Structure formats: C-alpha cells, structure tokens
C-alpha cells in the first residue's frame, strides 16, 4: 500500500514537470500532502500517539490546506499570471525528471547495508532533485517556493522512512523549516509583488559583477 502511494507521489512529480498552470502546481502540492498523510498514517500507526498526532496534523493541516491556500492568496493578491513560464520545453522537463527518478533508483540500489526501504529513499531523492529542478528551470518566484515545498516533501518522506526511530526534535525541525521558510518567503513574495509590477526573477538579477 505504502509503495503504491509513493509511486503515485513520484508520478505527481512527473506531472509537475509538464504542468504549466500555477493552479495545477498548487493542486499537486495538496495532493502530495494527502499522499504523505496516508503514508505517515500507515507507517507510524504504532508509535506514540502524541508524535503521530503531531505528524498527521502537520501533513493534513500544513501541507494539504494551509500552504496551498496561502499560495493561492499570494497569487491572487499579486495578480500573478497563471502560466508557470518554464525556461525549458515541457518535453525536456519530463525527460529530466524521469532521468532523476531513474538516477535515484540506481543510487538507492547502490547504497547497501543500510536499514532503509529503497522505495522511500527513491521517492525522497526524486522529490528533492525534482524540486531543485523546478526551482532552477521555472521563471516565476512563486514557483521557487513550490519547488522548495516539493523538496520539503521529499525530506519528509525521508524522515518517515526512519520516523519510527526518529527523534521528535528533528520532526520539529521539519515543521519549523516549512513554517518559517514559507512564511518568510511568502512575506518577501508579497514585498516583491509590491515593489516590482511583474513577479519574475528577471527583476531580481541586479546584484551581480
């Protein structure tokens, strides 16, 4: 069951590669939140309740509801155009993300002798790298945040794979990371929206030599 969810997760990444509407991205993020909720529910059913509740709350509340809404709010407020405006044609994006998944598959096979389930490792790695890929290849600033969130999801999966022995502290860490960064980034996106009329990274390369 977990594996199916994770595979779905991976597929969502691929879909992200070809999606060219911001709304699609947000939906995918929400979907990933739900997937993560499922995974964590299945995996962590036997750990202590407090921790479980916390994680579930995190997945459902933050990843599935709060953040997508927040992003929607930002987009509305700053009247950002609805296209993602990638630098690369979708075709290449898909190819690259597939390559990323393949690579993480190979890598997960290479690292041996470690107590970790390869599927988790694969999904996490794929998420992290696709997130980075999205950040690198998309034009809008909001998409940077989205890519960042994808990375966070990957990290979350990775932590899940070790979660039943995972100290709560690090779990807290994830929350703090997402919460703070998203908030701060959101604030700055707003600022940028107020400062520049057009929310594209092209406004943000004046500091250079």
């Amino acid at each position, binding site marked *: 069951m977990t594996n199916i969810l994770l595979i779905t997760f991976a597929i969502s990444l691929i879909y992200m590669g070809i999606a060219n509407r911001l709304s699609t991205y947000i939906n995918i993020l929400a979907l990933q939140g739900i997937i993560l909720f499922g995974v964590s529910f299945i995996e962590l059913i036997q750990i202590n309740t407090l921790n479980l509740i916390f994680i579930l709350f995190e997945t459902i509340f933050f990843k599935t509801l709060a953040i997508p809404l927040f992003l929607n709010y930002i987009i509305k407020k700053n009247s950002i155009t609805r296209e993602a405006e990638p630098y690369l044609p979708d075709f290449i994006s898909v190819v690259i993300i597939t390559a990323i998944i393949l690579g993480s598959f190979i890598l997960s096979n*290479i*690292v041996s*002798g470690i107590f970790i389930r390869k599927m988790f490792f694969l999904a*996490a790695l794929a998420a992290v790298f696709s997130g980075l890929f999205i*950040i690198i290849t998309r034009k809008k600033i909001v998409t940077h945040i989205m890519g960042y969130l994808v990375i966070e999801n990957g990290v979350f999966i990775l932590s899940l794979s070790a979660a039943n022995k995972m100290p709560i502290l690090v779990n807290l860490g*994830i929350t703090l990371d997402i919460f703070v960064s998203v908030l701060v980034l959101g604030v700055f996106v707003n600022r940028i929206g107020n400062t520049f009329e057009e929310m594209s990274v092209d406004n943000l390369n004046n500091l250079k030599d």
Partner: protein
Amino acid sequence: MFIYYLIISLLIGAATMLNRNRVVRIVLLILFLVVQTTMTIYAYYHLNEENSGYFKFDALGVIFLCVLTILSYTTIYHSYVYLKHRKDSIRSQSIYFAALIILIVVMTCAYLAAHLGVLWVFIELTTLSVAVLIYHERTPLSLEATWKYVFICSIGITITFIGIILLSIAIQETNIANFSFKAIPAQLINVNTSWLKMIFLLMIVGFCTKMGLFPMQTAAIDAHTVAPPPISAFISTTLMNVGFVSIFRTYTMFSHTPILKWMNIILMLSGIISIIVSAAYLLKVNHLKRMSAYSSIEHMGLAAIGIASGGIGYFAAIFHMILHSFVKASVFYQIDQFHRNFKTYMISETGNYFNRNKAGAMVFLIILIAITAMPPSGLFITEFWIFKALFTSSHMFIFIAALFFLTVCIYSLTKNFLFILFNQTKDLLPAEEKPNSTETYTQYFLLAIVVYLGINPPEFMINLLNDAVSILPK
C-alpha cells in the same frame, strides 16, 4: 545557567522591540552586553561542561563566543552611529536592535550547541534573524539580496537536513542524546563508507551557505552588498564563524572514520575553488563592500584548506578565522564612515580619502596590510602555518595555486585601496559633515589585537586552540 541566559536576553530583545524611548534603549543594550559578557566569562570558567541539556562550553565554542562578544560591543556601537546618521524611524530602529540582539543570542547558541539537531535549528534561526537586518534599508536591491539570501540559505539548510536524516538512519538509534557530537563518532564505526561520504557531502554543502565557501558562497556576497555596514561586519565574521564551527564539528565527527582523506579532498577542492573565484572577481569588482565580501571568501577558502591539510592546519585554520574576524569587522566599520564621506560604495567614484579623512585613511592603510597577510598582521603567521601544513600534506599543486591566486588577490586589493586613498583624478564634492576620528578607535583597537595575537598570543588562547583540535587525528 545557559537557559537563564537565553530567557533573559530574549526578554531584553523583546523589550527593545517594544520600547520606543532612546535612553531606555541604550540602557537595554548595555544590559544585554553585560549579560552577554557574563555569559562568556561563565562559559570560559566552566570549560567542557554540559549545560542545560543541549549545550556544552567546549573550547571551540568558547573561542568563537569570545570573538562574538568582543565584536558585539563594537557592532552595537557602530550600529548606533549608523542609525544616528540615517535618521530612521524609531520603530525601524527598535526592530533593528531587537533583531541584532536575537542574532547575537542565536549565534551564541549555535557556537555552544552540543547537539547536531540543535545546531541545525539555530543555524536556521540565524538566517531568519539576519534576514531582518539585511532588509533594514528597504530598497529594491536589499529586497532582492534578502530574498536570495533567505532562499539559498533555506535550500542549503534543507540539504544539510537531508544529511542529518541520513545520518540518523545510519546510526540505528532512537535516543536523542545519541545525536550529540560527543556520542555520534562512536556509532559511526561500522557504517558503510559511501553512505558516510554522502552524509558528509550533503551536510558540508549546506553549511557552505553560512561559511561562504564554494559552491554556496553566492548568497553571502549579495547579503554583504546591501546590509548596513555593521551588519555586513557580522555576516562576514561571526556568521561565517558559525558556518566554520559547524563544518569543523562535522569534520571532527567524521574524522575518525575511513573517509578522512576523502573529506580532505572535498574541503581542499571547495577551498581552492573559492580562492580562485574570489581572485577572479577581485580583479574587476568595483563595489567596496563586494570587494571585502570576496576577500572574505578568499580567507574562508584558506581556512578550509587549512582544515583539509590537517596537522598544524587545524590550529592555523581556527586562528585564521579569529584574526580574520577582527580585521574584516574593522573593514566594514570603516566602510560605514567611508560611505558617509562619499555617499557611494563605488570605488571608481571615490578617491583622495587620505586627505578627506586622515584617521580613516590610516585605518584603510593598516587594513590593507592586515588583510593581505603581511607583517605585522597576525594573518601572516596563520597563513604561514596553513601553507606549512599544506606543504607537509604534500599537496604541491594546491600549494602553488593557492600562493599564486593569493598574489592576484593582493594585487587587486592593493590597487583598489590605493585608488581610494590617493587617487587625485576625480574632482569630488566635499564631504557633508566633518569625519569624526573617534569612530575609528574601535578599528585601531581591533587591528592592534590582530597584531598582538600574531606576535605573542596569550597562554589561555593557545590552550583553548590546542584543546579544540585535540580530538582530531594528528
């Protein structure tokens, strides 16, 4: 004890945030400095002592804590001067000082953290608290820089976090205490080396954002450019020290595993590339603060090389970081005065500083000597040691390359500083207010420290340094 320190100073920070009265603010600041100082002294006298769970007053932390405390005095003073001349609104001033206090507190915690997770959390916090300060001037440029800084640091910190998770997976343990730096090495004995390599790589790349090493040096430079000069001083000294401490701790953590040589290669690579990049940009950079930022990158590269070459290199690297902190801080303090004199940071639009502000010009002259690591600057000694270590570890190619590119850096720095001091070709409009030479005393003081430490470092400092490197393989 430490927990009280945290609470008190955070309270002071909150008070500064809310307070709108000048006198009260000064009182609060002085109060905070007192607290910070007492904390430092306490830490020094309770060396290698666990405190309130996640913190430990070990030698490395205490050394850099001392540096931080000394610099927090000067930085707060210069921030005060800076704000006085900027005539900001009371509110933004309160925010500034509150954020500054928080930053200092958070960095203190980062130095003393004895637990990987805690260290990580506080590093994240430094990013946030410094972001507020970087954005203080509220210009589009500062917005851009802050955005980049926060974003890249978040990415970096996340990469580090992945490393930490992998580590936690690697050491099959549930107990939080086992995540302290003391406990980890023992559990790494029978972990697959390729796994260790990946963990180390990810963690280092993350920390590089803070220390300003290649490949993640980029954000730090932009942050330097727009931050208020006193804050730039902090970014390129104590904040980079945070990065250094974390890298050093990580290195120490793994130093008894078979991947030691591999780690050295990585750090060596990162260091030398940093030096090359800084050399390349110093040749053409025209923005004074960016120039100083690049020179910081160069020195970070040297420190990394120092660690990587081992032996006396560990010792030298820490020493180098300390001295560099003092020098670089004084650079940025002087840059503040410089900026008030010329109303610009662009080197090509300045000149003849020697006759416009004699005291400041002398500071620049001494800084030029100090930062290019020529005697009587202490950096000369540390660089000598680093190169000795490099030679001993028989990395001849790196040795030559480093020497060569350092020479290039020296050329560019000399050229630019001499231009600022002596160039007569520009006809500039005179400075608005007469430069105040009392503002340069702090710089003279710091530079005097640098010279003194270079010639005759006090006993306790040597002991601390030896203590800090004692665990590492000889």
